[in-house]
C-alpha cells in the first residue's frame, strides 16, 4: 500500500519548468569570436526544444550552460523564475536529467545502480531508490532481469534506454539531451526516437535536445532553434513553420532542398483535401455507376460494402455486367487511414504502383481518395515551393487494366 502511494506520487511528478535564455553569450578563453552570441530563447514547460546546427554553432555549449557544465560568460538562463547562476552547480544538476551521446553509463555499476545514481545523491534511502529503478525499467520497456547486469552486457540500444531511465530517475523538471541517439544504428535510432516521443506524452518534461540532424530535429521538436556558426540564432519556430518559411538562406540551406518532402513527414492524410470516388454497391445497376463516372474527380468506381467499407475498384469488365458483382477484379489496396503520415502514404502509393488509394476513417468507412496528383499539387503549390518533385513524378500505372 505504501509502495502504491509512493509510485502514484512519483507518477504525478514534479511539474515541468520553463527554460529561458536571456541574452546569453559564451566566450572561451583564447578565442576572439564568442561561441554563442547573444542567444535569447524561451522554451515553454513540457515542450521539446531541439537545438540544431552545424558543428561550431555552439549548440552543445548552449545546452551545457543550462546545467552549468559550461559557465555562462554574459546573460542568464532561467529555470522557471530562478537563475541558474544563483544555484549550486551540483544541486542544480540533480534536478535535471542529463543524457549524452556516449551514454556514459558507469561500467562498474549495475543497470539498477546506474539508474539509482541521482536518487542516491539526493539522499533517498536504498529501498525507495531501488523501487524507482524497477519502475523506470518498466517505463522504458526493459525486462527486470536486466537490473543486475553490468552495462557492458547490454546492447547499444538497451544502454541508451538505461541512459534515459537514469536521467528520469529523480523525476527532473528539465531534461538535457545531447545527441542522445547519435551513436546508435539508424533502425535503433528510429525506435528510440519513437519510444521517447511516446514516453514524453506521459511524462511531459521540458526537454532540450541537441542534434546535428535536421530530420531528427523535425521529428522530435515541438520547436526548433537553428543555430548558425558563432552561436547566432537563425530561426526559432515550429517544424512546420521552419519548412514553410525559412527565415534566411542559411536556414533554407540547412533544412535542405527536399524540405517539401520533409513536410510530408509532418502531415497526416486528414490534413489534405481528398478526392471523392464514385461509390458503387453490390447489386447496383452498372448503368447508374457509369453515369456517376462522368466528370468525377476519380475516374474509377469504388465498390463499398453496406457499411461503406472499401471492397475494391471496379474495372471496365466489371461494369460490363448488368449489376455490380460482389467480387471486383482489383482489390482496394493500398488502403490508407486518415491518421497515416503523408510521407508513408506516398511511399505506399509509390510502392504499390497505383495512382489512387482509398482512405478510411477510424471505423474503416471510406473518407475519400488520395492520389499522387493531390500530393504532387500540394508539393507544387507556392507554400510548399517544391524544388525536387522529380522523385514523385515517375510514371505510375492506373489501378485498372487498359
Amino acid at each position, binding site marked *: 500500500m505504501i509502495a502504491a502511494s509512493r509510485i502514484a506520487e512519483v507518477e504525478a511528478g514534479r511539474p515541468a519548468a520553463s527554460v529561458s535564455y536571456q541574452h546569453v553569450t559564451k566566450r572561451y578563453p583564447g578565442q576572439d569570436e564568442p561561441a554563442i552570441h547573444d542567444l535569447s530563447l524561451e522554451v515553454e514547460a513540457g515542450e521539446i526544444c531541439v537545438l540544431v546546427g552545424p558543428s561550431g554553432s555552439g549548440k552543445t555549449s548552449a545546452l551545457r550552460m543550462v546545467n552549468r557544465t559550461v559557465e555562462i560568460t554574459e546573460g542568464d538562463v532561467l529555470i522557471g523564475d530562478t537563475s541558474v547562476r544563483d544555484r549550486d552547480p551540483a544541486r*542544480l544538476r540533480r534536478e535535471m536529467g*542529463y543524457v549524452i551521446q556516449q551514454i556514459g553509463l*558507469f561500467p*562498474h555499476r549495475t543497470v539498477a545502480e546506474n539508474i539509482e545514481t541521482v536518487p542516491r*545523491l539526493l539522499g533517498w534511502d536504498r529501498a525507495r531508490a531501488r523501487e524507482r529503478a524497477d519502475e523506470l525499467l518498466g517505463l522504458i520497456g526493459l525486462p527486470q532481469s536486466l537490473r543486475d547486469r553490468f552495462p557492458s552486457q547490454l546492447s547499444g540500444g538497451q544502454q541508451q534506454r538505461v541512459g534515459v531511465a*537514469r*536521467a528520469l530517475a529523480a523525476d527532473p523538471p528539465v531534461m538535457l539531451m545531447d545527441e542522445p541517439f547519435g551513436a546508435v544504428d539508424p533502425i535503433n535510432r528510429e525506435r528510440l526516437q519513437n519510444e521517447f516521443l511516446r514516453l514524453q506524452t506521459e511524462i511531459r518534461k521540458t526537454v532540450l535536445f541537441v542534434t546535428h540532424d535536421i530530420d531528427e530535429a523535425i521529428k522530435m521538436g515541438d520547436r526548433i532553434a537553428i543555430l548558425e556558426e558563432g552561436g547566432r540564432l537563425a530561426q526559432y519556430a515550429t517544424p512546420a513553420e521552419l519548412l514553410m518559411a525559412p527565415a534566411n538562406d542559411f536556414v533554407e540551406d540547412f533544412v535542405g532542398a527536399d524540405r517539401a518532402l520533409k513536410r510530408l513527414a509532418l502531415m497526416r492524410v486528414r490534413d489534405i483535401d481528398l478526392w471523392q470516388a464514385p461509390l458503387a454497391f453490390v447489386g447496383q445497376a452498372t448503368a447508374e455507376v457509369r453515369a456517376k463516372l462522368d466528370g468525377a474527380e476519380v475516374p474509377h468506381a469504388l465498390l463499398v460494402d453496406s457499411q461503406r467499407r472499401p471492397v475494391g475498384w471496379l474495372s471496365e469488365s466489371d461494369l460490363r455486367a448488368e449489376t455490380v458483382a460482389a467480387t471486383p477484379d482489383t482489390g482496394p489496396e493500398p488502403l490508407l487511414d486518415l491518421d497515416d503520415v503523408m510521407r508513408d502514404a506516398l511511399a505506399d502509393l509509390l510502392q504499390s504502383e497505383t495512382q489512387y488509394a482509398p482512405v478510411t476513417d477510424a471505423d474503416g468507412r471510406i473518407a475519400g481518395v488520395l492520389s499522387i496528383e493531390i500530393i504532387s499539387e500540394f508539393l507544387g503549390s507556392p507554400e510548399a515551393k517544391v524544388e525536387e518533385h522529380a522523385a514523385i513524378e515517375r510514371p505510375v500505372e492506373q489501378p485498372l487494366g487498359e
Partner: protein
Amino acid sequence: MTGAIATVAPLVGQVEIHNRTGQNAPCQAQEGKVFCLGWAIDNFDRYTTPLLNQLFLVLIAVAIGFAVAFVFAILSHRQQWLVPTFTAATGVLYTIPSLAFIFLLLPITGLGWTTAIIVLSVYTLQIIYRNIVAGLANVPMDSKDAGRGMGMTDRQLLWRVELPLALPEIIAGLRIATVSTVAISTLMVFANVNTLGAPLYQQIDFKTNIVIAGGLSILMAIVLDALLLVAQRLLAPWRRPSMEALI
C-alpha cells in the same frame, strides 16, 4: 656487489640467526646434492622467524608506500602539474641502490626495522604512484561527464566513479610493488632485520639452505600476488575475463 657484501659483513654478523655447528654435518657429505630433505625437515623451524619477519616487513612497507603514493596521486589528480614532479621525484628515489640507501639512513635512523621499512616503502612509491595516476587518467571521459552532469561533486566523482574504475590498475600496481618488495626485503638483513636474507647470506655455500630460504621468498611473492589478483577480481566484477587477461 661482492665488495658491498664484504663491507656490510660485520653488520650481518650482528644478526643472531642460528647455530651453524653440527646440525648440517650429515648433509656436508652429500655436498653434491642440491637439496637435503632430512636436514630441511629437521631445521625448518630456523626459517619461521625470518619468514614471518619478512612477511610483516613487506606488508607494512607496501601499506605505507600505498598510503603515501595515494595521497600524492590524489593531490596531483587535482593539480595535474604535480604529476611530472612526483613522477620524477619517486623515479629518482627508485634508482638509489638498496645498500646505499641503508647507509644513507644509518646516521638518521640507525639499523633496524625503521630503516628497512623506510627503504622498502620508498621503493614502492614509483610503481604504485604511476599506476594510480594512470588508472585515474584512464577513467572514461563520458563516465566523468555523466557523473558531473548528474550532480556529483568532485569528491563524490572521485570516490564513486573514478577510484572504483581505476581499481584494476591500482591493484595491478600493488601486485608489482609487492612482488618486488618481497625480493628486496631479503636485502634488509643488511639493515639488521632478520628476514629470509639472513639465512641466505649466512650459509651461501649450502645449497639446501639457499633452496629453502630462496624458495620461501619466492613462494611468499607468488602467494601475495595471487591474493591480490583474487582481490582484484572480487572488487572489480564488472571487468570481463577478456579484459582481466590483459593485466
